[in-house]
């Protein structure tokens, strides 16, 4: 019997997508639109962040409404360490990852004791705490945020070149997706599926559901923190708005648009939302209206998201 939970690696489509992504900077250069390389890098980073939230919502059934806080933890860690003299991305990015993981451990340890609506609300509360903390600490730049002079250095390659940064972000995203696939195909992933579908039963069978959920929560927080670190390295600035609760909402939108509980759901959703946003924002200042209508339509008529639609066709 075919194992329905196993996520197969489809070598040809995967290679195709990776090849397109790898050639993208070349295409942008040929078309004389180098700006799009930075935009594409931002999309890749959000794909990483949305993927980490998808792990929680789609696979773990943990509807976290505070994911922006972990992104912020990573971003502000990098923004604090760089002026202190740490310039190497090999130190900065793992530090961002650890910051996200550490904060997620604290939040998860308390929040995962609650269920359902209360879990949504308590993760939101923790994210708001982080938001107001950043907003009122002058060390962190309060309203204005922090600005960095340079991008971090990555040893042999120069991240100040947009194309190089793009490939670095692409490598991180691909590694994260491969890692998530491995995790979901491993016993831990199966246990996570079980917990999502019936936590009480899994507990009765003898799984340490609380600890498993906390582990996954920390992994997702780590990936989000890394995403935050990449984001601030790319932009050279970070502000408290990165932690606002509406940002957590936007990340959830990405997951749902792309398809919760699909390996590529988060990444697809990030691409879709950011590209659509970029495309409409050129024409109207009222682009959130369009996003709102699309989101409403997806929730009401296509709850499986984009990957669900494609799957139905196939």
């Amino acid at each position, binding site marked *: 019997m075919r194992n329905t939970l196993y996520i197969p690696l489809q070598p040809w489509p995967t290679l195709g997508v990776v090849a397109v992504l790898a050639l993208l900077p070349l295409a942008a250069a040929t078309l004389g639109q180098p700006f799009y390389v930075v935009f594409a890098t931002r999309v890749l980073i959000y794909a990483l962040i949305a993927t980490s939230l998808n792990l929680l919502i789609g696979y773990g059934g943990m*509807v976290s409404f505070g994911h922006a806080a972990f992104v912020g933890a990573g971003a502000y860690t990098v923004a604090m360490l760089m002026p202190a003299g740490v310039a190497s991305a090999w130190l900065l990015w793992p530090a961002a990852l650890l910051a996200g993981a550490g904060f997620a451990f604290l939040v998860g340890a308390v929040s995962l004791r609650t269920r359902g609506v209360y879990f949504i609300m308590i993760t*939101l509360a923790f994210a708001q*705490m982080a938001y*107001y*903390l950043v907003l*009122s600490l002058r*060390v962190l730049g309060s309203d204005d945020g922090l600005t960095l002079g340079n991008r971090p250095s990555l040893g042999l390659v120069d991240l100040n070149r947009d194309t190089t940064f793009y490939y670095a972000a692409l490598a991180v995203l691909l590694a994260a997706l491969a890692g998530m696939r491995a995790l979901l195909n491993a016993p831990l992933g199966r246990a996570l599926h079980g917990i999502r579908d019936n936590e009480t039963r899994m507990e009765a069978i003898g799984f340490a559901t609380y600890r498993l959920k906390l582990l996954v929560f920390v992994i997702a927080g780590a990936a989000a923190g890394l995403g935050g670190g990449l984001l601030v390295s790319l932009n050279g600035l970070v502000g408290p708005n990165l932690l606002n609760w509406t940002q957590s909402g936007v990340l959830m939108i990405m997951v749902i648009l792309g398809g919760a509980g699909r390996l590529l759901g988060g990444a697809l959703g990030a691409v879709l939302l950011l590209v659509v946003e970029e495309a409409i924002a050129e024409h109207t200042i009222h682009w959130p209206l369009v996003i*709102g209508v699309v989101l409403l339509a997806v929730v009401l008529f296509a709850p499986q998201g984009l990957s669900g639609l494609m799957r139905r066709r196939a």
Partner: protein
Amino acid sequence: MPLSLIAEQLLNGLQLGLMLFLLAAGLTLVFGIMDTINLAHGSLYMIGAYIAASVIEASGSFLLGIAAAIAGTALVGVALEMALLRRLYQRSHLSQVLATFAVILIANEIVRMIWGSQPILLNMPSALSGPVELLGLRYPAYRLVVIGVGLMTAILLYLLVNRTRAGMWVRAGASDREMAEVMGVDTRRLFTLVFAIGAALAAVAGALLGPLLAVQVGMGDNILILAFVVITIGGIGSIRGALLASLLVGLLDTAGRAFLPYLFRQMFPAVIAAEAGPAVASMLIYVLMAAVLYFRPTGLFPARG
């Protein structure tokens, strides 16, 4: 620290708490009876403030403005309930969060299209713009009126929920919806009614707070989160819990912002105090909420036994 300052801050806290209650009451009923998260409640608050500002500007009458805000927002609420919320009652909380988040985006843009991006002016009635003497304390008259209206609305709501037949249906629906249906309560109409009342209360809060805070696009986004903190602390579905929690949150937030920096200056070196005071003060209510949920995972007064 002078006593009059403490009294003034307590009154401010009471005022914030009562306004939060107006928002939280509708939210907790919708949540408790229909098991539905409605993020768009903050948009109703915003719409109420805008309608009030426009009507007051056009007619010059503050009372007319509030009446128009109540009626208009209740209508918007009913339309929203019949067109959208009704489809969401049976869906997951995640779907409800996303769909009503979409409503926030849409409502903000529609308001921006009608009234523009600039904050608009909502003046308090000139008769109330001065201070009054209250046991030797000079306190703004308008804020006292806000406190008075807030208290009156809270009492009216209490009587409505606890002393009338419709209120009995509401309570029955909150504690066990299916049983209430079996006993003959028309929950469809009840839902619409509750939603309209919630929208009207949000409009009152928006219109009253308009002169004190700015009337602008997105004004409901942050106060909505405060209202959610209130209903989570109070226990979802419980009016009594919402009242106590909103007073608690209002007083704690105001007192924290006013007194914590002062307190920290007594305890820590000035440099640390200047940083930590405001930071801790602004986090206080979220710490309270996390603590309440940690020890009582369903809030202080859960409506469902």
